[in-house]
């Protein structure tokens, strides 16, 4: 802000000198020579440093990469030109490395702008800012090619597009994959687990009778499997780098964050229409799907406690958190690298810095943290919650008769008392040591409004004002911030003065409840600390200020807890019941979960060069202008409205990116590489589509199905996946051939199904299935392999292979940047940055982990035991069974001989260990 003020004062000088010589400035005579001599060398026809061109009026008005208008006619104080020539910011002083313009020239420029920046012959010139980039144009459904081969074989439109493209290189599909490979491929692609031997032999047998019908049935079965949702949730969670810890220093666990993971699994399993999936993740709080907003807070964040106390650092941290949200939305749903426009206009795409900040405005009410998610009325937790709330209300009504009482909400204590209207209250503590992150005051009218909040003009004072060590000031009790930023007070042994907090309201308020807490953030937001967050038993008396300006005792903890209990033993049952209902609510109602919390939105400004210290124009929430993202919102629109409107815009059938990006993402996960290989960047810097028409046909089909239209629903992920895996392209073999390699070594044109390595999850889940120990429970709390830790300590792996871990790896706690000592080496993401696709590494450490880890040892033994138990125990039969369990095939004679030899020299478990290390096990056939 300082720059702004400084620039304003400089301008006053400039402008006032201008008034002294108020004659008309002439562009040709006065301005053009300055521009030519001092500006056009870098910002002219030949060079456009920082994307700025000053030899044409419309470009001068538009500005360069900074996103600031170089000139605003009539308003020199808003014209960046005047700021830079005045050297307001030494790091952005123009012309650079040269003498400053003489004051007379600055004066001329200033007056020229003031007088309307008149530029003869160019006053009506406008810039064409529209983009001709293919991905930003509306989707138009292309004609399906009349590809004779495809037609003859009765293949789908997908094949028609692919075969046509192959034919232009003289290529065609490979022969069909053998049934054994096909079921393994389909099962892994669709559900992430290799098929069982029984499923495999049944499919092989059925294929012999009618391969088309058998395959169609197989695909239907796999799509209907609850494991389908788990597999596809994993892909989605990768993209948005969802994890159950914050990252950063303390890397705290995010309490109940997993309910969002379950939401994603359910969405895929129930085939939630993708447009609705998009809407719910952005605005689920107003759609009865509160847990879906876990999406918004999927990225890492730095909690307040480790940002430090400097206001600049606090502002920077908030800007960084908003940027994490922008990256999540941009990479996953929009396919645009919106983050590139944080400091200046996007280098490659028509996205301006104003677009970036307008979009942060959409999420201005989102903060990283937990809340009790909003569920639809028929949600079991919602219903249970309503029941319990009724009980609470009934019991409170009874208790109100007797005066006051106190409730323990885990996160805070709430003292209820007889309503009174007053201008000020004083809470006098009777304890020696106090820590308060917030002290809230509520009245009977707007029951949720914290009357003590500084936002409402309430003034706080008390003793000690600066808190313990002078480092914990009292204004933290009404700043609305929960967590480690507390007011701390400690009364010395002989101290006369007891700690107290005083609130002076801006007007007389009717009040009836006090809420006190020590660290509500830790209660709502985190878990698995070795010490539970502490909620002290606060002992205090509260005075109110009467009309005569006298303090009058009104209520106190001793009075409501002790005195009233003695006077009214009959209220004991009601007290017990209200507390019981509160405790049950925390378990059975909507639980506090790390799916984001909402804060009152503050005004959104364009931050010049990305700096929160240099806010410029205020903007209303909107999507990028180039995509018609104006939402018609007022600058002060409520946060929930902003997100709801944005979600509608993003999920509309007209949005050029949303459908394209999702069908391409699906394609990537089915075929190993997207039609656009850069799955999260559809901008100009992204890769070209290998099959642009096919992509658009799929996008159109996704939004409005025509193929199999009787069974396909709009925006159906399952229908889209079915369409792809039913194609002949998916069903062909993966063997190489010289013609294909010669023309298209990368198999991007799909002359074969491209073989690829399977991910960490597939390896682990398939091993567990082979040993017969895979716990197939869907959803729920993640299984733990880590310790409970101190706040500032690293997570440590305690045991990563015991029976409690025998679930699908999707349910392993996803911890940011923690090595699980097994699968991190297999490119399991560290969840720090968006991961639209996983790299594939080959390292000796993978080999060591898969040969020597406790997990592999234990499972090798279990698979051997199972194989023995399921056969007659003879070595030969046992080994055949091990092959079936792990590789879904029988051994060839030489393999069998080799394995028998090893088993005889050692043990069958060694054979299992060896098989799970083979390339055959680790590659998608």
């Amino acid at each position: 802000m300082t720059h702004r003020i400084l620039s304003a004062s400089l301008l006053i000088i400039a402008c006032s000198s201008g008034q002294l010589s108020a004659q008309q400035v002439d562009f040709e005579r006065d301005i053009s020579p300055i521009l030519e001599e001092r500006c056009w060398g870098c910002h002219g026809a030949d060079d456009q440093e920082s994307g700025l061109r000053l030899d044409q009026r419309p470009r001068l008005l538009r500005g360069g990469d900074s996103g600031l208008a170089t000139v605003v006619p009539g308003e020199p104080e808003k014209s960046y030109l005047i700021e830079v020539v005045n050297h307001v910011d030494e790091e952005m002083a123009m012309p650079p490395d040269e003498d400053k313009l003489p004051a007379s020239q600055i004066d001329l420029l200033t007056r020229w702008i003031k007088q309307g920046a008149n530029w003869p012959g160019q006053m009506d010139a406008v810039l064409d800012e529209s983009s001709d980039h293919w991905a930003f144009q509306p989707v138009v459904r292309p004609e399906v090619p009349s590809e004779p081969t495809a037609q003859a074989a009765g293949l789908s439109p997908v094949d028609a597009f692919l075969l046509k493209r192959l034919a232009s290189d003289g290529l065609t599909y490979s022969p069909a994959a053998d049934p054994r490979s096909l079921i393994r491929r389909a099962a892994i692609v669709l559900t992430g687990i290799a098929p069982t031997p029984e499923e495999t032999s049944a499919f092989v047998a059925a294929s012999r009778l009618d391969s088309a019908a058998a395959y169609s049935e197989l695909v239907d079965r796999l799509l209907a499997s609850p494991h389908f949702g788990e597999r596809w949730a994993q892909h989605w969670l990768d993209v948005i780098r969802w994890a159950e810890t914050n990252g950063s220093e303390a890397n705290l666990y995010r309490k109940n964050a997993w309910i969002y993971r379950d939401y994603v699994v359910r969405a895929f399993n129930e085939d939630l229409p993708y447009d609705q999936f998009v809407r719910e993740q952005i605005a689920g709080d107003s759609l009865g799907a509160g847990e879906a907003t876990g999406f918004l807070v999927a990225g890492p964040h730095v909690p307040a406690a480790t940002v430090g106390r400097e206001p600049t650092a606090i502002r920077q941290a908030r800007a960084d958190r908003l940027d994490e949200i922008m990256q999540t939305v941009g990479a996953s749903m929009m396919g645009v690298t919106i983050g590139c426009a944080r400091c200046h206009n996007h280098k490659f795409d028509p996205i301006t810095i104003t677009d970036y900040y307008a979009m942060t405005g959409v999420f201005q009410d989102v903060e990283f943290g937990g809340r009790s998610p909003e569920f639809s009325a028929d949600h079991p937790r919602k219903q249970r919650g309503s029941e319990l709330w009724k009980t609470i209300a009934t019991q409170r009504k009874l208790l109100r008769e007797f005066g006051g009482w106190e409730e323990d909400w885990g996160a805070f204590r709430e003292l209820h008392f007889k309503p009174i209207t007053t201008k000020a209250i004083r809470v006098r503590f009777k304890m020696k040591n106090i820590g308060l992150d917030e002290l809230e005051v509520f009245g009977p009218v707007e029951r949720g409004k914290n009357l003590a909040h500084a936002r409402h003009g309430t003034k706080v004072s008390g003793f000690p004002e600066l808190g313990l060590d002078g480092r914990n000031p009292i204004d933290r009790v009404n700043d609305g911030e929960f967590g480690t930023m507390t007011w701390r007070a400690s009364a010395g042994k002989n101290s006369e003065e007891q700690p107290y907090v005083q609130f002076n309201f801006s007007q007389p308020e009717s009040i009836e409840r006090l809420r006190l807490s020590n660290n509500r953030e830790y209660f709502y937001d985190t878990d698995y600390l070795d010490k539970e967050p502490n909620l002290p038993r606060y002992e205090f008396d509260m005075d109110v200020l009467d009309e005569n300006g006298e303090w009058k005792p009104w209520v106190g903890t001793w009075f409501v807890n002790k005195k009233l209990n003695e006077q009214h033993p009959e209220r004991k049952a009601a007290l017990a019941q209200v507390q019981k209902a509160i405790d049950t609510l925390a378990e059975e109602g909507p639980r506090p979960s790390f799916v984001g919390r909402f804060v009152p939105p503050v005004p959104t400004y364009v931050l010049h060069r990305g700096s929160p210290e240099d806010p410029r124009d205020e903007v209303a929430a909107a999507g990028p202008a180039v995509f018609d993202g104006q939402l018609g919102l007022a600058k002060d629109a409520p946060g929930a409205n902003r997100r709801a409107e944005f979600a509608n815009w993003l999920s509309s059938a007209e949005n050029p990116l949303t459908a394209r990006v999702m069908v391409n993402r699906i394609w990537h996960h089915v075929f190993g590489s997207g039609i656009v290989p850069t799955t999260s960047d559809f901008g100009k810097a992204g890769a070209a589509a290998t099959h642009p028409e096919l992509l658009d046909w799929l996008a159109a089909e996704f939004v409005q199905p025509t193929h199999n239209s009787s069974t396909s629903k709009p925006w159906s992920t399952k229908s889209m996946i079915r369409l792809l895996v039913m194609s002949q392209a998916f069903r062909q073999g993966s063997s190489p051939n010289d013609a294909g390699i010669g023309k298209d070594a990368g198999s991007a044109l799909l002359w074969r199904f491209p073989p690829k390595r399977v991910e960490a999850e597939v390896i682990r889940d398939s091993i567990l299935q082979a040993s017969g120990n895979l716990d197939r429970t869907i959803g729920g709390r993640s299984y733990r392999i880590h310790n409970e830790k101190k706040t500032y300590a690293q997570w440590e792996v305690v045991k990563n292979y015991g029976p409690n871990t025998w679930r699908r790896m999707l349910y392993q706690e996803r911890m940011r940047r923690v090595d699980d000592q097994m699968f991190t080496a297999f490119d399991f993401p560290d969840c720090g940055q968006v991961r639209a696709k996983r790299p594939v590494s080959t390292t000796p450490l993978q080999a060591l982990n898969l040969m020597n880890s406790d997990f592999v040892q234990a499972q090798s033994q279990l698979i051997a035991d199972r194989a023995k138990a399921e056969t007659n125990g003879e070595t030969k039969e046992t080994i055949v069974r091990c092959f079936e369990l792990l590789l879904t095939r029988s051994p060839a004679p030489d393999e069998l001989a080799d394995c028998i030899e090893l088993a005889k020299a050692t043990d069958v478990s060694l054979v299992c260990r060896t098989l799970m290390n083979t390339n055959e096990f680790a590659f998608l056939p």
Partner: protein
Amino acid sequence: MNSENLSPLGQRLLDRRNFLHTAGLSTSALALASMLQADGLLAEDANTVSGEAPIRPDVDPSRPYQSRAGHFEMPAKQVLVIYCPGAVSHVDTFDYKPALTKLHGQKPPGLPAVTFEGPSGNIAKPFWEFKPRGETGKMVSDLLPNLAEHVDDFCFFHALSTDTSAHPQGENFMNTGFTMEGFPSFGAWVTYALGTENEELPAFVAINDPRGLARSGKNNFGNGFLPAAFQGTDFSAAAPPNNLRRPNALTSKADRLSVDLLKRLNARHLERFPGDADLAGRIASYELAGRMQTTVPDVMDISGETASTLKAYGVEGGSELKGSYARNCILARRLLEKGVRVVQLFNGSDPAGGNGITNWDSHSNIADTHAMQAEIMDQPTAALFADLKQRGMLEHTLVVWATEFGRMPFLQGNGTGRDHNPGAFTCFLAGAGVKKGFSYGESDEFGFKAAIDKTTVYDFNATLLHLMGLDHERLTFYHNGLERRLTNVHGHVVEDVLA
């Protein structure tokens, strides 16, 4: 690596030229090359932000650790980073500020009232006496008497400044070039660019402090969005990498038989995909893993070190932590001797990692806490440096001593500690390609802000890459819409420090 040690199969598979020149065996190697190109689609036509075309390391996916040439020839082939988490006080070690003694106890003129931890106190003179050292007469405090002996070989950066005053972000910034999480570490970038000289050891080793990981944990040596092959492998003198050892229940014979069977099964499978580089690379990785099971314990075994070496490093006679750190220093030298490309040695952990003092963070009782930390760091680090020098290894090894920011010239409200100072701090380099006995940049008279030749973390990292023969503007990796760099879109090589 020494390819003579490989089996004939492994050797054939590893030789990429062999793939490409054997008729009919060229399929998947080409496929992979083409896929890499698809990922690196920008390499040819689009430019990096700096406007220069990226120079993409030619990584053979079947052999990611193969030694690769840098962008230009420089003496440094290996790099040792000694990282001191917690922020070492520059004004109490290497950055001599007599004004602090003069103004001791006074309110700092024009300095801020609130810093990272809260309200600030009075100016404090250095807690240890500064003396001229070596022939250059460089002023260094008595806190680090052993390192002080080598100042004639060091090249100091006194005007470093960073963007954050919080430790984890500061560690991230120094080690990954970004304050945020999830970006590749310096070591990962170097390994990605250069591979390693000895594929039988991990290319990039992170030796964590005996008390545990630093605050940013694995992020300091992680691969970020680079392939996992380039992440730092963490082990120390006390603990080998995870799962290195064959399980106790297994005899070495059983283990060998199992490995032999695997080879046969994989060879048979490969016949169906002739020449597939992915499959072949994975087969080769098992051979390397087998070799590492010998090479890593060998390099960890310091029993053959002479008594005088052990004494010089301070293995015995100091605190237990000093002994453990000293062993880690010996391990660092042994790794470098064997050709490991990047060794990152930590001297400090996160705040909960040990008893009492765990790193250089000294918000209270700096006189004690810095002293305890220095006792651990000083002698072993100095001995490591002397050892490298004496063995001639500095000819081709760059040594980096770094921390995330400095400490304040004034005390905190409590009167005994110094708060974080992002405005000025000191790190030093030594060894291959670096000027000796040189100091670059100056902080102001209090050591509060960088004053002359301000050096950003971007500049520092750009310089490190340059010293390794790499152009920081052109060493890139495509991720999520951008050709990413260690230095983002910033950084200038500090030419003045180049020898």
